[in-house]
């Protein structure tokens, strides 16, 4: 008994020594910033002076600030326009290329390849694709006699134009996740469906889709986070939030408040708001899907 206790003490010591490097970095750069982000939302601070406790003032400011609500709307626009198409298109393409045929493995690379692009590289490409005078998209419209404006610099089309690119960038991961899920779907359900004389389209939505529902939940959550979060990178690089803040999401607004206007407290409030929005969407989504599946 005595030796056993001593033995597990050694185990515990070893475990701590294995865990400490990860814990130190994780606490320093994830846990502390997370707590600090919440604490700072109750302070007024410009990076230089002593932080001053202001209670709920920063939150009160939120309610009188139309910019905050319009950037919340932009964040929602990114999520609403982006998540469903990414999920549905990703699913259908995954089913398409899940075929067990020779050489399909090689062709699949075409579907995965956008994953290598950074937002910066993709931005260089799509800014030119959307160019109203020289770009190929405008040229395609011109062939039908239609002049299109600069989609990235028009208020109503800036976010949709960015979302198209983001869907394209997000598809590979979604396809890969669905491919893995499809491999786990038992083959005999398809045989049964074929016996029943169900067509390919029917089989797809009434057999395959329900069988990958758990993956769909994961994909949807990941994409809500992706579209809420990477809208910051995308609009910072490609539109700087313009035109007239039409593509300025909560993330970018918070970024500008912190690093352009040195208002750390209010920037923190905007980050907290963003977290609340994401959590709310995920929770509501879960409740709705778990209800409708019953």
């Amino acid at each position, binding site marked *: 008994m005595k030796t056993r206790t001593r033995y597990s003490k050694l185990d515990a010591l070893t475990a701590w020594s*294995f865990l400490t490097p990860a814990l130190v970095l994780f606490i320093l*750069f994830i846990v502390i910033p997370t707590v600090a982000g919440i604490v700072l939302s109750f302070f007024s601070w410009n990076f230089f002076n002593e932080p001053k406790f202001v209670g709920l003032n920063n939150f009160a400011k939120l309610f009188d600030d139309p910019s905050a609500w319009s950037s919340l709307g932009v964040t929602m626009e990114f999520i609403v326009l982006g998540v469903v198409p990414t999920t549905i298109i990703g699913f259908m393409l995954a089913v398409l290329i899940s075929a067990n045929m020779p050489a399909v493995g090689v062709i699949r690379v075409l579907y*995965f390849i956008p994953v290598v692009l950074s937002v910066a590289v993709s931005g260089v490409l799509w800014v030119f694709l959307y160019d109203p005078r020289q770009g190929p998209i405008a040229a395609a419209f011109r062939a039908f006699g239609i002049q299109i404006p600069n989609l990235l610099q028009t208020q109503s089309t800036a976010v949709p134009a960015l979302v198209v690119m983001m869907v394209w960038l997000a598809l590979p991961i979604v396809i890969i*996740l669905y491919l*893995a899920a499809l491999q786990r779907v038992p083959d005999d359900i398809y045989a049964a469906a074929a016996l029943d004389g169900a067509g390919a389209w029917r089989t797809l939505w009434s057999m395959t889709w329900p069988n990958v529902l758990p993956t769909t939940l994961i994909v949807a959550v990941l994409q809500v*986070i992706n579209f809420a979060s990477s809208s910051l990178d995308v609009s910072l690089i490609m539109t700087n939030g313009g035109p007239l803040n039409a593509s300025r999401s909560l993330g970018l607004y918070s970024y500008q408040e912190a690093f352009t206007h040195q208002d750390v407290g209010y920037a923190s409030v905007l980050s907290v708001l963003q977290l609340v929005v994401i959590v709310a969407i995920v929770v509501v989504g879960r409740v709705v899907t778990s209800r409708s599946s019953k």
Partner: protein
Amino acid sequence: MKPGKIRLGRYTTIVIFGLIIALPLLYLLSGSLMSYKDIVQYPPRLLPSSPQWDNFVQAFNYLTPQTIGNSFVFVGGVLLIQLAICLPAGFALSKIPFRWTTIIFALFLIPLFMPTNLILIPTYIVTFKLGLIGTFFGMILPVAGQASIGVLLFRQFFASLPDGLIEAARIDGANWWQVFTQIALPLARPIIAAYSVITFLTAWNLYIWPLLSGPGTATRVLTVALAPLAGGKFSSISPSISFAAAVISMLPVLIVFIVFQKWFTKGVAGSGLE
């Protein structure tokens, strides 16, 4: 009825959709070799009239060789530190009997669904207070600290190793470090490869953190050098030269991806958080 025909039809569909998805990227590659006249021509052309390799030379006016080196230092640093901290942590949480396992694992899991952009500002403040802004350590350490997925993935893998294997070695007198380095790590090679490819890709493509933490020329990475070309900050530059700069900055990840594609897809599927 006619399986041959159906198969051909499906093949054609697969290839056509694949080409549609890859088309923008193929256009980027092709456009990087076009002359200015080629790329702005109406109707647009798909291939250069004659390849302009000089575009790549000119692109180096915007991306210096040093930014390429900096990107490798940044990504290499993130990758090495992530492996060095996540592997032992994953092993300890799955194999070493220990009272705090559940609590510590839960702690690592909390931020799994939290976008890191949300803690951008406080992370900047912590890094600033540590005096690391403008240094490679300041760029690398906060990204390396995003250990949740790595710990989860490696813990999952080590947990799948049979306990008998480890007990046998323990009975033979091996200590935990020996079990870890001589038994567990060699078996973990596939998962290490998968995680490395994903981490390489992710870190290489990061933009905002390297912009905030190391914007000076000494530490500037490729994405930070390239981004102004996407924002139209140099309107005088030919699109084909911007394209060449974009191709240069994605070439290393493109090569890594094509060579290690199998590991990448396995890793993503495995981290599908089941």
